[in-house]
């Protein structure tokens, strides 16, 4: 029977699978969604999901799993979709990914699982992200996720930061029987998933449901705790009885460009702009108390080409901006944003000013922003990052009239934990030193991962670090070896 057990459940013959087109993700029409905060993508229904799943070539050595930072067994979960076992598919994903409804929405699949899909050599790759999202949403709608049965180990782990990395560690460790408590500085759980990524790309309800699931598994959460200020790592270890600590405090301080006029009213960091909108719901002022500048009929630009930049400018558009620009100093090819977001942004009418950089902000003389003075760039020789270095074109200066400018050029390390934890090694940029394999820091019993180790990266890379950390924390707790 072993041979039949391995036999494909897929009714479609191998050569037919290439002929099925990649199933399109149903989405809100661009002209409608540009004016609301509802999710852009609407999700597959079971028929679409099964159609798409049947395209899988069921490779003997699937590269999709190798390219997934958390190692989701793609082939196995897709196979379960083919036979209609959607809950089984969800359970399969959950074995390695505690936030499937999130990653199915925000992963840059083109750089990971889908990037090396065999189908993509001839046709479009399998819609792995869409399928992952489908099974996670299906499970959520059914409300029947299976709680794992675990034996308590009596060990306690503190997790600092409730973003994707910390949640992954929490989810993995609770399933190993350890007691887990997550400390969050803000008043809501989820880190960048709640303050950074907007509703139209990741509905907060989805995040809340995933967190609720973790609570059901026994993870404890404590908000309003800034570790390093409210309590230190040493106090957690020595006085509160934690056997290990994981630091996943995230990206940290927003960077500014250090050009004249950055302090004018109307110039925001992307973190502040998005936090006001996503976490504080400033767009619902005065029902919510946190204010923000009224963008109705105003011209707004974001500076930068990453996901955060696109999240900010597409939010501005939804808040009624008349013109919404992306100012990016390199060209399309170098833009780090997720392909689908760039595509969606263009559909919505975002104006991309490529090979352009601001050199100064201009005000009305009373401290309010009126324009960004920009220069056009051309690409020169490759720089340290391997990308061609943008060089200003002489005499190309021009003023772009603006009421609001949002700076989304990255972040630097937040020093609060490092500066209050003696013996915790950092690199020269101030990020925490951690082994790439085990996520161990220079302090016994202290692990770290995600953006506070690597600098700004993606949700899934932070989750990958969380997975590795959970495994190595479990090893440490069970063997005592450091």
């Amino acid at each position, binding site marked *: 029977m072993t041979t039949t057990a391995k036999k494909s459940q897929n009714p479609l013959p191998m050569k037919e699978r290439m002929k099925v087109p990649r199933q399109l993700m149903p989405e809100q029409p661009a002209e409608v969604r540009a004016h609301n905060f509802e999710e852009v993508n609407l999700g597959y229904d079971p028929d679409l999901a099964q159609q798409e799943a049947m395209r899988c070539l069921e490779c003997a050595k699937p590269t999709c799993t190798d390219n997934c930072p958390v190692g989701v067994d793609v082939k196995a979960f897709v196979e379960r979709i083919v036979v209609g076992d959607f809950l089984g598919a969800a359970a399969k994903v959950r074995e390695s990914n505690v936030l499937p409804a999130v990653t199915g929405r925000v992963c840059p699949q083109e750089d990971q699982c889908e990037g090396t899909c065999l189908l993509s050599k001839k046709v479009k790759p399998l819609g792995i992200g869409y399928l992952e999202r489908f099974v996670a949403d299906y499970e959520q709608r059914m409300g029947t996720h299976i709680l794992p049965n675990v034996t308590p180990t009596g060990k306690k782990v503190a997790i600092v930061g409730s973003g994707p990395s910390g949640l992954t560690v929490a989810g993995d460790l609770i399933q190993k029987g350890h007691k887990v408590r997550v400390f969050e*500085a*803000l*008043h809501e759980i989820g880190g960048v998933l709640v*303050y950074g990524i907007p509703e139209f790309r990741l509905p907060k309800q989805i995040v809340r449901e995933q967190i609720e699931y973790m609570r059901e598994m026994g993870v404890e959460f404590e*908000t*309003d*705790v*800034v570790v390093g*200020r*409210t*309590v230190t790592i040493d106090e957690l270890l020595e006085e509160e009885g934690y056997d290990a600590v994981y630091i996943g405090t*995230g990206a*940290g*301080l*927003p960077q*500014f460009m*250090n050009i004249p006029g*950055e*302090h*004018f*009213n109307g110039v*925001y*960091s992307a*973190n*502040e702009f998005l*936090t*006001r909108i996503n*976490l*504080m*719901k400033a767009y619902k*002022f*005065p*029902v*919510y*108390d*946190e*204010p*923000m*500048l009224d963008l109705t009929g105003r011209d707004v630009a974001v500076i930068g080409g990453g996901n955060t930049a696109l999240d900010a400018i597409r939010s501005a558009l939804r808040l009624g901006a008349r013109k919404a620009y992306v100012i990016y100093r390199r060209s399309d090819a170098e833009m780090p944003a997720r392909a689908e977001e760039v595509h969606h942004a263009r559909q919505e009418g975002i104006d991309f000013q490529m090979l352009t950089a601001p050199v100064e902000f201009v005000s009305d003389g*009373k*401290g309010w922003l009126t324009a960004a003075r920009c220069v056009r760039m051309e690409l020169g020789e490759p720089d340290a990052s391997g990308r061609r270095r943008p060089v200003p074109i002489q005499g190309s200066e021009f003023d772009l009239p603006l009421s609001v400018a949002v700076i989304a050029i990255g972040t630097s390390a*937040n*020093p*609060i934990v490092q500066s209050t934890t003696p013996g915790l090694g950092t690199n020269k940029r101030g990020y925490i030193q951690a082994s790439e394999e085990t996520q161990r820091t220079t302090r016994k019993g202290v692990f770290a991962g995600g953006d506070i180790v690597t600098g700004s990266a993606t949700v899934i890379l932070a989750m990958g670090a969380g997975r590795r950390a959970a495994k190595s924390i479990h090893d440490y707790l069970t063997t005592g070896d450091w």
Partner: protein
Amino acid sequence: MFKIIHAEFLAPGVKRFVLEAPRIARKQKPGQFVILRIYEEGERIPVTIENSDPERGTISIVVQAAGKTTHLLNSLNTDDQILDVVGPLGKPSEIANFGTVVVVGGGVGTAMAYPTAAALKRAGNCVISIVGARNKELVILEPEMRAVSDALMITTDDGSYADKGFVTDKLRQLIENGTRIDLVVAVGPIVMMRAIAEMTRKENIHTVVSLNPIMIDGTGMCGGCRVLIDGKSEFACVDGPEFDAHRVDFAVLVQRNSMYREAEQRSLAEFHRCKTEERARELAHAVEPVVAREGEQR
């Protein structure tokens, strides 16, 4: 949830709250602050910590009604709850034996100046305190300040109590009398801190001010509280809130603090209107039977 275990007015519009916040109470040092959010739809605002009691697990904060949130906060009483209180935030004041230190508290700023004055006194400094307020009623923490100062001077703008004038007049007198001053610490309205900075710059007296820009998270994440220090952006929540007064660009601080003035005024007007309507309803209900309405359940 953070329980209010005691609430009392120190002056009209200025209220002290003792909150149950054991973690913060254990860690609080002079110069630090908390950020709080009263209810689900509320904004996050930074508030001065006046004092803490690590044994009882309490902190006391002092709030002056200015906008909607502070008005709402000041309507809370003993046994009410505050949804979120996070801290202690910011770098603590630098405490050492400097010699003679002048501590200036303007208005509600006195509440933040007080723990710093007390710590400076404990560190062996000669502490000369100057407390200023608009009028007699608004002079706060006089006995507390007196207890931690070698000398205490009080001014009121209108002369209704102690000496008529401004805190800067007293500081000028000290300087003119040839008092040796090793450090000035000033906490209060921006105009006051700026005036003091101007005065001590000429005299080359090291001066520290505690800045109060608009903030959201208070952990360095949003960058909204950036202030211009020697022409460079620094974050008041993690690099401050105390800065060398002679390096601060006060004009930019004033300008940035005015960013949401319109929205703030609208919020406050709305709040007062609701309060008035609520009061009117209460009065109406006193004579009419109370009918619970569905929409008012939450």
